[in-house]
């Protein structure tokens, strides 16, 4: 991958991308590409908070394209999860083994609802999620 090549010289950070899709009136899916760390985790935080501001109560964080996350990113997820009002949910889509290991080692696999795919995370919006993606 070019991102790896860029990172190997130690000067260029791994490309990071984050985007939000509104699957329906109350569901937002935030997909992340690259590394979630001290520098990029705040973007995830603001995007999640924006979705909550707009009245979206079903949040999905798609980490399928993410390569790494540190304790700061975990802190963002924990903070948002704890600020959810009753009825709101935060689901995580992750099939990456290394990321799953991070969740396991930090004990967060028992905190979040982690699904292997987006469709698993959004059973009620199955069709729309497939269309949107």
């Amino acid at each position, binding site marked *: 991958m070019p991102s790896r090549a860029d990172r190997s010289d130690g000067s260029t950070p791994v490309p990071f991308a984050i985007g939000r899709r509104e699957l329906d009136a109350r569901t937002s899916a935030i997909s992340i590409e690259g590394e979630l760390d001290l520098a990029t985790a705040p973007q995830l935080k603001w995007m999640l908070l924006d979705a909550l501001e707009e009245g979206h109560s079903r949040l999905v964080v798609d980490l399928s394209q993410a390569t790494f996350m*540190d*304790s700061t990113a*975990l802190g963002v997820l924990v903070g948002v999860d704890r600020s959810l009002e009753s009825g709101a949910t935060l689901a995580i889509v992750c099939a990456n083994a290394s990321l799953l290991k991070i969740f396991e080692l930090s*004990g967060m696999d028992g905190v979040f609802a982690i699904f292997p795919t987006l469709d698993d995370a959004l059973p009620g919006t199955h069709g729309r999620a497939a269309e949107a993606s």
Partner: protein
Amino acid sequence: MARDTGTHPTPARRAWRLASALVLVSCALSLAAIPTATARRDRTSSTATSTPPAGASSQTVPAQSGAPTESLPRPQARRHRSAESAHPPSTGTGTARHDSGQTQPSSTQAEEGPEALYNTAPAPGLASKARKHGRGHHREGETTRSHEPGKRSKAKSTQPPAESGSAPGSPTVATTAAAGAQASASAPSAPVAAAPATTGPAQATGAPRSAVDARPTHAVRRPARAPRRAVRRRAGSAALAPAAAAPAAATSARTAPAPRPRPAHAGTRRSSARARTSPLVTTITRIVDVVPTPVRLLIAALLALAFALAVRSRVAAVRARRLERQRGELLEDVGLLQAALLPVPPARLGPVGTSAAYSPAAGPGAGGDFYDVFALEDGQLAVIVGDVSGHGRQALPHTALVRFTLRAYLEAGLSPRDAVQTAGAVLERQLGGVFATVVAATYQPRERVLSYACAGHPAPVVLGGGPDAHAVAPVTICTPPPIGVGMRTGTRQTAVSIPGRAQICFYTDGVTEARVGSELFGSRRLLDTLHELGPRASAAALLERVAERADARPDDMAACLLGVEGDDAAPTALVEELELDRDEAASDRTARFLLACGVERADVADVAHAASVAAGRAGTVVLELRLGDGPPRLTLRREHLAYLHARRADVGAAL
């Protein structure tokens, strides 16, 4: 270091001193130049009214005759003159004689010429005496009014009567006398002018006479008095003598005691005074003379600016020194606080070699890591390592809170798992959204057993010291979450038997998340590094080696190393504990945990069911798996800290 810079002059400080010295010297020079400049201005103004000394004799005459009223008495000039020679009396009397002689004695000459001539006779003699002192300019100028230029002194000294005699004949004096007569005639007291015409001159001539009488005694010794007295007397006589004498006396009073200031002489005197000054000042004065006034003002402004800047720089330097001192004090305070959070453990605690180290990240990720290594009363050794999710100064209070809470529970005798669980329940509300990953451990030297409990924190590396040494592989499944995420924690504990030599490494995720190229440093490299360093390595050496191998360290690194002596027997995992409630017991996670611990897959469902039933009765149950060569021996026991959760539930209901 900071103190050293305060005592030893740095190059910048030396340059500052040099600059300030230059500014001071330039200020002093400018101050020295100011009086010289003013003196020069005075000199130029004085030379503007008079001419240079060389050509003074020829030009003082029109200046004096053209502007007699300018010659008002100047005490200074008079003093200078009287101090120098007997010229002033001759000048004063000469002038008095001359001016009044042109006006007042003119009537005398007109009516009783001989007496007037006699009275005026000594004056030229005195004038010649004065001229012998080398001050003849004034006399020359005055005498030209009654005589022809050239050989005047001789004519005066040798022919006094001739002078007086020729005076009436002189057109100038005649004109002046006529003017005085006309003035007296046209004066308001004209009616009485004729009567005193005979007495007036007599009284008026009395003045010159008395002046003459006084002259031999006063003229040379106290020359300045003579004309004044003469004028006074003449004025008094003029007051007594009405009419024609009055204007004449007034005229003489105005003109007689007012000898022209002698700029030429003053200039000569100053130049002689200047000649006595040092050549340096003379040179500077010449330079200053050449500089135009605007440039001089500009230089003064620049000097003032330089002085202001110097003062400002000085103030800044003083302030910088003060700030440096305060910074040192603050650093000392921070050092004390950091020492409270990151204590230096003793090199050995019983049979165990201990070391700890902390390496803050260079960027904004610094702060949040903490550790503690201490001895317990029963000879056990306790270790705490943790990481608060916040960074920087905001993390400090939380790190202290978590560390000392855990330490208190460990010192109170709780097991690591109980300590973490209790701390998690207690600190949940105090951390305010911040969470903390921790590992708490105790080591029993007699049984050579290490027990540790993690809460979202990586398990310690236990590395044997034998030739085929390997690290104990921890079961990471069902790791409890960190303290502060709102979930029950402290549900796991692992006991490791360490029969022989071993290295125990507690660390924070900053170590394994350091970057080597595009990869994480990882636990594999950590193990390799521990191998390389050997059993007696210190935590500081470990972190140093990690920093050398890593390209970037985005987070803090903290590590505690315990070195256990012994033979080559390899460490093994002894006991795995997991506390479960009923739902958790039936979860897939628990099944995976049982499988990881070596429980046969066929037995997993039975164990999970039994745990679920037991937890249903007591709220939670502790699953204890004693590991060995064969399948683990399973024990279910009641959790003795269950009352803590019950109390917390009550509190929640009450709220």
